[in-house]
């Protein structure tokens, strides 16, 4: 079950022609797919398109009614290969994943798909994880489009434009026999807005039709001699067809008065920010009226030479707004204009920075510099241009920079991965620091304080693979971390299988939280919950043993820090040769709470006996050393000043958000910290036996404490 449910929102997918759809970008994308008569959809979750996968999963019924097949793919490579269904058959298909990391994984399938070409429209929806909030290396999907000759759409970030891009994308794909990549940026996925809906369309030709009437054509298979012909076909047939289609259907847009001296060429996705920057400079308004003409490339690959030449001719200078590096569009425009013997100056990287997200503030500075150099008279003096620099220069604000602490993301309250790293830190205290190869997933938060564990991260599921080189004799073994998501994505073969085959001696710690948790708690093969549409409950340990690992330990309660520590220590010190694998399993607390909390609350309301746990700290006993925090980092374990003049340092304190996972007590025990922690078991709706027992205990204990209280001399003030 995913972290966020769209059960209510997906009902909007049934809207018909003329209805106004209001909602989030990802829902609009789903609706657009249905309006385009898509036959199948597949993908792999990851921000910013995780929620698109969740919407599709929650829309299973509606998809079923329309005869649309939906798969949660094992990886992005699987998703991309799924598009093979559109090679021979006139079926529209769409796949989605996070980019560029997902595109990296999918690259093999995409290249093969693009070589042979497609019959039915094939759309690759890439969530561009670039800029603020991104969790990956900062790269561009543009290069993939160019290298495999896949057309790249980058629509203006409003719902009508995005929805139109889907219709255009399928049609373009079919007109040019080429797959089309459609990029949506982080914020566009979650932008809210509205558009006028159309009726959903059932696919005219279904997957069942294809299975019943298979077709083949060796000319479409990537093998010589066809592969040589594909390359020719790409430039001789498909490219001109695409250019023709884009021109005829006016996929790119022009805004503003074309007679101006200067103009801006921009990626569609930058449109809103460019308009805002222009309007803050007094050169445009909030409704898109602009004095600086804009050539908006909703298609960023291929470039349409004629359109660019027409736009640039008769202008003194143009500015190319192309986010990310390296620049591909700007040098291409240079080349196009030179070939056409047009002397218009081309600016881009220069007034605008070479790297980094183009925020409105950065665009404002860049556009102002560009206009000031090339059309100074356009700039007005009566416009108040927002400027935070003076306030940022103020001493009181500058002083703040030393005060405000960094707040990187970390393990949630009660996270089952925390005790794994508490244990690992304890083992490192005994056996010394080890080389730890980290992976992608929530467990990567271990690299930050307080754990400070993990040296490299080479890609999803590649934790063990990235420790491969350390397969030599030494005093210490390598440690690799891998999540359950990464394990099924590829880690079983790339990491575990590889370690067996190469007789590695290292340890792999598989963090099994029952979901693909970092991406929003989607089900995977080893998920424990039943799922109507998917097969789950495949044990990771069995798979690991199946590929030949002999030394396997399963820990089914990660919160048992002592056992966790002992098992890790054993793995690092055992004389047994060969790969060691520890599968540490406990359910993602975020999902568990979401599942259990309503059940518990309703049980308490119904009068059932329920025991809930939470932890506390005896503030009289805590001395404020915070060793417990350095082994935990739990958001609910914080500090507070007691007001006791004898205690200068704040003591540990557990707030109401504690979910009673037990890590505090386990760590205090395993690390021999202090006796300050206690666990409170709260028995709701106690039965008669509970009450009787509590009464008997209470009276004995009460009498004992009362007697001692009487003996104690106490200051009455």
């Amino acid at each position, binding site marked *: 079950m995913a972290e966020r449910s769209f059960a209510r929102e997906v009902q909007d997918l049934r809207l018909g022609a003329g209805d106004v759809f209001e909602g989030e970008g990802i829902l609009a994308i789903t609706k657009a797919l249905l309006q385009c008569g898509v036959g199948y959809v597949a993908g792999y979750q990851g*921000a*910013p398109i995780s929620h698109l996968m969740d919407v599709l999963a929650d829309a299973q019924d509606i998809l079923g009614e329309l005869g649309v097949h939906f798969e949660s793919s094992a990886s992005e490579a699987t998703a991309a290969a799924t598009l093979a269904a559109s090679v021979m058959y006139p079926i529209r298909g769409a796949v989605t994943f996070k980019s560029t990391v997902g595109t990296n994984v999918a690259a093999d399938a995409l290249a093969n798909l693009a070589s042979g070409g497609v019959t039915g429209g094939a759309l690759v929806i890439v969530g561009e*994880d670039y800029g603020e909030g991104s969790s990956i290396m900062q790269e561009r999907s543009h290069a993939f489009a160019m290298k495999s000759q896949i057309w790249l759409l980058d629509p203006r*970030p409003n719902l009508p434009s995005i929805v139109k891009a889907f219709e255009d994308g399928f049609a373009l794909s079919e007109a040019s026999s080429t797959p089309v990549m459609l990029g949506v940026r982080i*914020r566009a996925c*979650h*932008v809210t807005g509205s558009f006028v809906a159309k009726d959903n369309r059932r696919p005219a030709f279904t997957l069942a039709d294809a299975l019943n009437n298979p077709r083949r054509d060796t000319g479409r298979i990537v093998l010589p001699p066809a592969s040589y012909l594909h390359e020719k076909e790409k430039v001789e047939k498909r490219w001109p067809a695409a250019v023709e289609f884009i021109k005829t259907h006016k996929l790119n847009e022009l805004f503003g*008065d074309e*007679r101006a*001296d200067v103009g801006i060429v921009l990626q569609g996705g930058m449109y809103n*920010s460019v*308009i805002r920057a222009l309007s*803050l400079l007094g050169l445009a*308004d*909030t*409704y898109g009226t602009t*004095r600086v003409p804009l050539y908006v490339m909703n298609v960023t690959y291929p470039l349409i030479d004629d359109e660019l030449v027409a736009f640039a001719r008769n202008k003194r200078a143009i500015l190319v707004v192309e986010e990310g590096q390296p620049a591909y569009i700007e040098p291409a425009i240079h080349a196009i204009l030179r070939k056409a013997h047009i002397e218009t100056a081309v600016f881009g990287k220069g007034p605008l920075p070479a790297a980094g997200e183009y925020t*409105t503030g950065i665009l404002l500075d860049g556009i102002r510099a560009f206009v000031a150099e090339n059309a100074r008279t356009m700039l007005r003096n009566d416009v108040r241009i*927002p*400027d935070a*620099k003076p*306030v940022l220069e103020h001493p009181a*604000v500058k002083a*703040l920079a030393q005060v*405000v*602490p*960094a707040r990187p*993301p970390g*393990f949630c309250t009660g996270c089952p991965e925390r005790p794994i790293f508490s244990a690992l830190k304890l083992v490192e205290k005994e056996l010394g620091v080890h080389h730890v190869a980290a992976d992608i997933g929530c467990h990567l938060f271990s690299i*930050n*304080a307080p754990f400070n564990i993990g040296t490299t991260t080479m890609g999803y599921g590649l934790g063990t693979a990235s420790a491969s080189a350390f397969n030599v004799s030494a005093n210490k073994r390598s440690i690799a971390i891998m999540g359950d998501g990464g394990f099924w994505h590829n880690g079983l073969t790339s990491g575990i299988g590889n370690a067996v085959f190469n007789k590695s001696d290292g340890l792999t710690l598989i963090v099994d939280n029952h979901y693909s948790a970092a991406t929003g708690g989607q089900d995977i093969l080893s998920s424990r919950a039943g799922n109507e549409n998917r097969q789950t409950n495949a044990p990771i340990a069995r798979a690991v043993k199946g590929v030949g690992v002999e030394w396997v330990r399963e820990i089914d309660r990660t919160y048992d820090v*002592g056992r966790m520590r002992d098992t890790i220590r054993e793995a690092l010190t055992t004389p047994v040769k060969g790969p060691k694998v520890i599968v540490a399993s406990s359910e993602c607390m975020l999902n568990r709470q979401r599942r259990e909390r309503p059940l518990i609350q309703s049980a308490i309301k119904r009068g059932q006996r329920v025991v809930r746990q939470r932890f506390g700290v005896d503030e009289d006993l805590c*001395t404020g*050393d915070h*060793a417990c925090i350095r082994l935990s*980092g739990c*958001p609910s374990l914080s*500090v507070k000043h007691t*007001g*006791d*003049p*004898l205690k200068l*340092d*704040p003591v540990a304190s557990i707030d109401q958000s504690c979910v009673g996972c037990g890590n505090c*007590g386990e760590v205090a*025990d395993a690390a021999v*910290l202090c*006796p300050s922690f206690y666990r409170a*078991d709260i*028995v709701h709706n*106690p039965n008669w036996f509970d009450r009787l027992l509590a009464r008997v*205990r209470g009276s004995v204990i009460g009498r*004992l*404490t009362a007697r*001692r*209280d009487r003996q104690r*001399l*106490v200051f*009455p*003030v």
Partner: protein
Amino acid sequence: MGQVPHRDLSSDRPITVAIVAMGGQGGGVLADWIAGVGRTHGYCVQATSVPGVAQRTGATIYYLELIKRQSGLMPVLALMPTTGDVDIVIASELMEAGRAILRGLVTPDKTLLIASAQRAFAISEKEKPGDGIADSGAVYEANAVAARRHIVADFARVAENAGSVISASLLGALAASGGLPFERTAFEQAIRDGGLGVEASLKAFARAYDLVRASPQRVITPTASAALGLPSLPSSVGVAALDQLLGRIRGELPVEAHSMALVGIKHLVDYQDTDYAQQYLTVLRGISEIDRAHVGSATGFLLTIETARHLARAMAYDDVIRVADLKTRTTRARRVSTEAAIVPERQILQTTEFFHPRLDEVCATLPAGLGAAIERRPRLFKLLDRVVNRGRRIRTNTIFGFMQLHLIAGRKSKRRGTLRHGREMAHIDAWLDDVRRYAVFNPALAKEVVMARRLIKGYSDTIARGQSKFDKVVIGAQRVAHRTDAAQWVKRLHLAALADENGDTLDGALKTLATLGPQPQTDGNSAAHCTPEATV
């Protein structure tokens, strides 16, 4: 080329709102409510957020733009805030308000800042072995400079008291601020339309609304956490044994130190008995006399006050008896019950304590002769440790579990004979010997050596680590004792010792110290060499 004809550009501008929050605080809910209010009142609203791992407890941002709907016109709204162009910033935590200011989202010509005053400490603040809490005062000062208007109050508490979450109280504050052109009822309707936890949300909304309306320029200024309220010395408490202690404080100590000495004897009477408090006063009196003889009165008797503080802590060392005592008191049971929010008729509380005694602690609590005898026999020690040294979960709500601790607590009367007691007293003597010696020629140094005692705290490994750091500082103090800047050096060592767990910063500072000559060349030079300064 001819000039471009000037069509009139519209001067309409959207209202821009940024919500800065931590993942999981409900910033998304607040954004949805605001968007709902706008949409039902003739506004085009665009809301965006940054999804992904940022929402796992890290700092994150939600952004909205609202503009009056005009027929036939489609506004082009931005997907991210522009620095210097944000009308309203809502911060769900104080340091997040500071972060918004540092990002340039809050500017004096434009921005209404609504911030909740509560703190959620970052790991970097919590993990320090000492007090790593960031200075909230800096945020208040920056608020006053950066915002056009700022409203700061503990909206988290307002929400909690109403049984709701902070998004509801922040919406109430926003409604009351007048920052958006909508009536109170419009905001309340948005909560109702949301359909989740409506009653509690409305209650929190109303309380925050009233709070802000009562004083629209509301700023809850922070009370400095260091300014702790010290009790004043009463003339009598009606118990002869205690009154005698009070009399001694009055008669033997400078008036400046009375309050701290009172805190000290209260602590020690509670810890042991009145005799123990008498012993404390005798030692303290000795220090105060040296203090008086030198610069004491000029410095407000800081040496005596700090000795009163740290000596009380040192004498009340945390041993097994103390732990058992504190865990078995009526007051403790009451506090745990309050913290767990127990409703007596409907809930029963059970408590489990986490102990992990080692033989070291057990030996320390034995009579000195016996304890030392075991310690002298490594093989026996190892054998016994194997029996003792393991985690024990003691259920103090059961009679058996309670009795175990109750009996240990009862050994209080035997404490003076334990191995640990002898060692603690010897350690205190050595420490105070240094203090007395320094007090004669450098009272400031003496005071710093007193204060370094703060490093000794905790249990098992923690206290061992603290002790070793303390010892290093004391040796450092001996090395620089005859320099005029000795006090500053000890203070630097002390703070360096608190900077990290393993004492790496302290070791670095000691290395620097080892390179020093007998006297500072010039003030500037010695400061420039001083690495720990940067970590202070």
